[in-house]
Structure formats: structure tokens, C-alpha cells
């Protein structure tokens, strides 16, 4: 018996340690995003063409990019676009998905058919390609990307909310509410919604991680943020030629993308375990 419980306990401890690291990292990123100008040692825009791309030195801890801009300061400032867009995408997608999923799951019938056919269609599309092409053709950069990602993310999220609603539907409290003559809208938003909200919150965290990666990807292709904006994805695009001279110009933002995404994924998993079980 002890042999079985031992690794489980060890696992729990390591999980908590990694969770603590995740929360710490997210706290650091959030602080950087809010107080970026006071934390960054230098302006992210100051160019020193005569300096060029130099490896780390006492003056520039993470070196400089092709235009002589401080990589560390640009990475710190990049925390803002790394947080704001994904938060809006995750919140926006789930706000729409919650309404569609509630309607689809509770009303059934043709409403359900129409919404689910639309979801099936969206899921059959190669999402990343759609994002690249639509953002590229429409133009508008970051905010167009945010809007397109909201639409793309709404489809799978709707499916999640709908199946959660379907689980609630046969439960006695719904019957009780209906027999009391409570309106559909009230049942949906006052009775069902609070019961599925924990699940929704867990998925919002996972959506955030996915949105972060996708927005960074679009910026990496030169389609997201405006040229010159300090943004992790954009830095990978602008610094792709300094891999030999100052690799930190790529590795630092790349590392931040991975660590932030991993943290949010683990936090999402943890929320999922805690809130839904």
C-alpha cells in the first residue's frame, strides 16, 4: 500500500512546487506589463546604430539588436502585448461561446443544429492558416488578429459549454425551476450558468495560453503588432538574423513565450482539477 501512495504524494508535492513557480512567473509578467517603464533599464525604442547587435555586456545585460536597442528592455515591455491580447481573446471567445453554448445545449432543436453545424465547419478549417490569411489580407495587425482569434476560438469553446449544459439539463433542479414557471432566460443565466462557470474559468486559462502562442506566431510572421513594437513574437521576426551575433535577442523572448504559455497551461489544468472535481 505504501508503495502505491508514495509516488502519488511525491507527485503532489512537485506539482505544487511547479504551480508556485507558474504563479510567480505570471506575477512577474503581470508586474512587467503594468510597470514596464519603471522596471526596464532603458527605453525599448532608443536606437544606437553605431552599437548594432552586440552580445551581453555590463551596460546591456541581454545585449542589443540590429538597431542597437536594448533586448532586455524590449522583452520587459513586450509583456504588455503578451497579456492584453490573449486576455481579450480568451474572455471574448468564452463570453460568446457561453451564450451560444447555453442556447444550443438548453434549447436544442433547430437552434442547436444551426450552432453546431457552424461549430463543425469552423473546426474543420485549418485555423492557423485562416488566421494568417485573413489577418494578412484585411490588414490592421494586432487588433484584427485578436478579433479573428476570438471568432476561431469561439467554436471549440461553444462545444465545451454546450456539453456542460447538456450535463446539467437532466438534473432535478432544472425540472424544479421549470415547474415553478421560471423563465428560460432566468434558468439559463441564474441557475445553469453558475454551475458551469468553474469549467468555463478553467478553459479560459487554457485559451489564454493558446491565444498567446497564436498572437506571437502572427507577430513572428510580421502580421501582428506594428513594426517596432516591443513584442515577443515581433522580436523573433526582427531578430531572426542575429542568431549568431546575439542569440539572446531570440532566446529571451522565445523563452518568455514558452514559460508564460506553460505556466498558464498548468494553472488551467490546476483550476480544472480544483473547480470541476
Amino acid at each position, binding site marked *: 500500500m505504501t508503495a502505491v501512495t508514495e509516488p502519488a504524494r511525491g507527485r503532489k508535492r512537485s506539482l505544487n512546487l511547479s504551480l508556485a513557480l507558474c504563479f510567480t512567473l505570471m506575477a512577474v509578467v503581470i508586474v512587467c506589463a503594468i510597470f514596464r517603464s519603471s522596471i526596464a533599464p532603458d527605453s525599448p525604442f532608443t536606437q544606437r546604430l553605431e552599437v548594432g547587435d552586440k552580445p551581453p555586456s555590463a551596460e546591456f545585460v541581454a545585449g542589443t539588436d540590429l538597431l542597437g536597442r536594448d533586448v532586455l528592455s524590449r522583452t520587459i515591455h513586450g509583456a504588455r502585448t503578451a497579456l492584453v491580447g490573449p486576455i481579450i481573446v480568451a474572455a471574448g471567445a468564452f463570453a460568446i461561446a457561453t451564450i451560444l453554448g447555453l442556447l444550443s445545449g438548453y434549447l436544442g432543436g433547430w437552434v442547436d443544429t444551426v450552432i453546431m453545424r457552424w461549430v463543425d465547419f469552423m473546426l474543420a*478549417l485549418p485555423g492557423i492558416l485562416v488566421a*494568417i490569411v485573413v489577418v494578412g489580407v484585411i490588414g490592421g495587425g494586432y487588433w484584427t488578429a485578436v478579433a479573428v482569434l476570438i471568432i476561431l476560438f469561439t467554436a471549440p469553446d461553444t462545444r465545451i459549454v454546450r456539453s456542460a449544459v447538456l450535463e446539467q439539463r437532466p438534473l432535478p433542479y432544472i425540472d424544479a425551476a421549470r415547474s415553478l414557471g421560471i423563465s428560460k432566460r432566468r434558468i439559463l443565466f441564474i441557475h445553469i450558468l453558475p454551475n458551469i462557470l468553474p469549467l468555463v474559468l478553467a478553459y479560459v486559462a487554457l485559451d489564454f495560453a493558446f491565444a498567446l502562442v497564436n498572437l506571437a506566431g502572427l507577430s513572428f510572421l510580421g502580421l501582428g503588432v506594428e513594426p517596432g513594437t516591443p513584442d515577443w513574437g515581433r522580436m*523573433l521576426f526582427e531578430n531572426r538574423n542575429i542568431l549568431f551575433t546575439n542569440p539572446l535577442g531570440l*532566446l529571451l523572448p522565445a523563452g518568455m513565450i514558452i514559460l508564460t*504559455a506553460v505556466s498558464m497551461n498548468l494553472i488551467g489544468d490546476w483550476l480544472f482539477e480544483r473547480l470541476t472535481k
Partner: protein
Amino acid sequence: MMREGVAGLILRRIAVAIPLLFLISLGVFALVHIAPGDPVRALLGTRASDPETLNNLREKYHLNDPFIVQYGKWLWQVLQGDLGRSINGNRKVWNAIAERGSITIALSLLGTAIVLVFGIGLGMIAAFKRGTRIDRAMVMFGVFGISSPAFVTGIFLLYFFGVVLGWFPTFGAGDRNFVDRLWHLTLPALALALSVMAIVVKITRAAMIEELDKDYVTFARARGLSATRITFAYVLRNALIPVITAAGIVVVGLLASAIYVEVTFALPGLGSLTVDAVQKRDIPLIQGTTLVFSCFVVAINLIIDVVYTLIDPRIRFGKVES
């Protein structure tokens, strides 16, 4: 009866795929009109123009017709294999795609091979070593794999194997020589594989763990069958069914990541052609590559659906709801 069932199923899947392709083509066509400004300008790009050229273009792309007529005429041309000409370089879109396709196909195949061999292998190891440090390391690897996009993984691979160790080239696809090509494609294929491998590891692990707990395994053990035989002849076969179900996600994810990987490693494939076209706003080229990519994705999903039903007889006979 069995053959009829399969044929019927394939027909049913195709019946779903056709309207899907129809809608995709409509979306792709609409790109001309989604682009800001006059569609003629979108088709002309940055080239200089006089009224006569503009009129010729309007005539050529039927821009004076109503939208649905334009779409019909365009679709008819596409179905005949005419994807138009690119704005930059005025080349036949179809030729540009054909020229770039081989790299993307080679890259995807190599990536798929790595995913299958290592993904299933690591998943099996994790299942056998359940609860140990190895298992936990594998789960952690899975989290990193799912979180980190192919272009970020690619940059780290480039740095360690290309710059620090100098084992692999840092850009390009090499010449036509097979060995050189393989040498150039190894790192990109690895970056591509890592982006989706975590899913395969996770699913294989879960499925193996579930199968290993079943009575037939205990029975086979009791009969004295070798561990190898039990693993490969019985358990793995059953455990692979969920993996095949997820194959659609894996292959589509692989193709999508190929776009990023090709850009990261400067490979002249379909993905980098698409990105290039998008950056230069070359609408006919974008339409062509998007259409080809989407058809590919739909076709692969169709094939996987069919293969899936062929492998698991329970689905073929309609005994299990998908």
C-alpha cells in the same frame, strides 16, 4: 454487408466534405473583396496602372458581374486547374505551388515519422513506468510540447544544434541530393514533430495504462505469454485506436505548424510561399495556396475517418457511437 457498410460510410463522409470544400472555396474567393479598397487594386498589387489595364483586369476577373456570378466563373476556372497568375512575377500560381510542394510534403512525412515512432514509443515507456520519475518527466515534457509553438521550439533547436554544436545547417533545404536534403530537413522536422508529439505521447500513455489494467492482459500473463508478445500483439493494437482517432488533429496540426517551421528555417515550401504571398498581399497566390492547403486538410481528415473505421470493426458495424 460489410463491404456495403464501408462504401456507404465513405460516400457519407464525401457527402459531408463536398459542401465543406464549397464553403472554403467561397471564403477563398471572397478574399479579393475582403481586402481593403477596390478589388482591382487588390489584384493589381503595387503595380502601376492606367484605366485600360484596370478595365482589362475587371474584364478578366469578371469584376463587373454580380458577386455570385463572379464566384461561379472563378470556381469553374479553378476546377479546370487554372488558379490564375501571381501578382509578383506574373507566374502561373499552379506552377509556383507545384514547385514548392515537394519540400512541404517531405517535411511533413519526416515529421509524421518522428511523431509516430517517438510519440508512441515514449507514450509506451511512460505507461510502463507509471508513477515514476520517468513518467513525470514525460508528463512535463508533454506540457512543454503542447505549450510551445513550432517556431519557438525551432529557434531553440537552431541555436543548440545549429549554432552551439554546429551539427546541422541553419537555413535552406539543401540541394536535390537526398542525403543533403535529409540533413537540412532533420531539425525542421524535429521542430515540427515536437509541436504535436506531446498529444500522441499523452494519448498513447493514457490508452496503454487503460489497456494494461484489463483482464485479457492478466490472462495472457497467466498463460505465460512473453511480455513482448503481450505488449505488441495485444495491448499496443488496442491502445493505438485512440491514437488513430487523434490522427486528424495531429496531421492538421503538423501541416499548420509546417507554415511556421518553414519560415523559421527558411525552407522554400508551400508554407513560406503562403506567408510570402500574404506579406506581399499577392491575392491570387494567397487564394491558390490557401485552397490547396485546405483541400489537403479536408482530404486527410476524410482518409483518417475511413482508415479509422477500417481498423476498428466495432465502428464499422455501427456498434459504437463515434
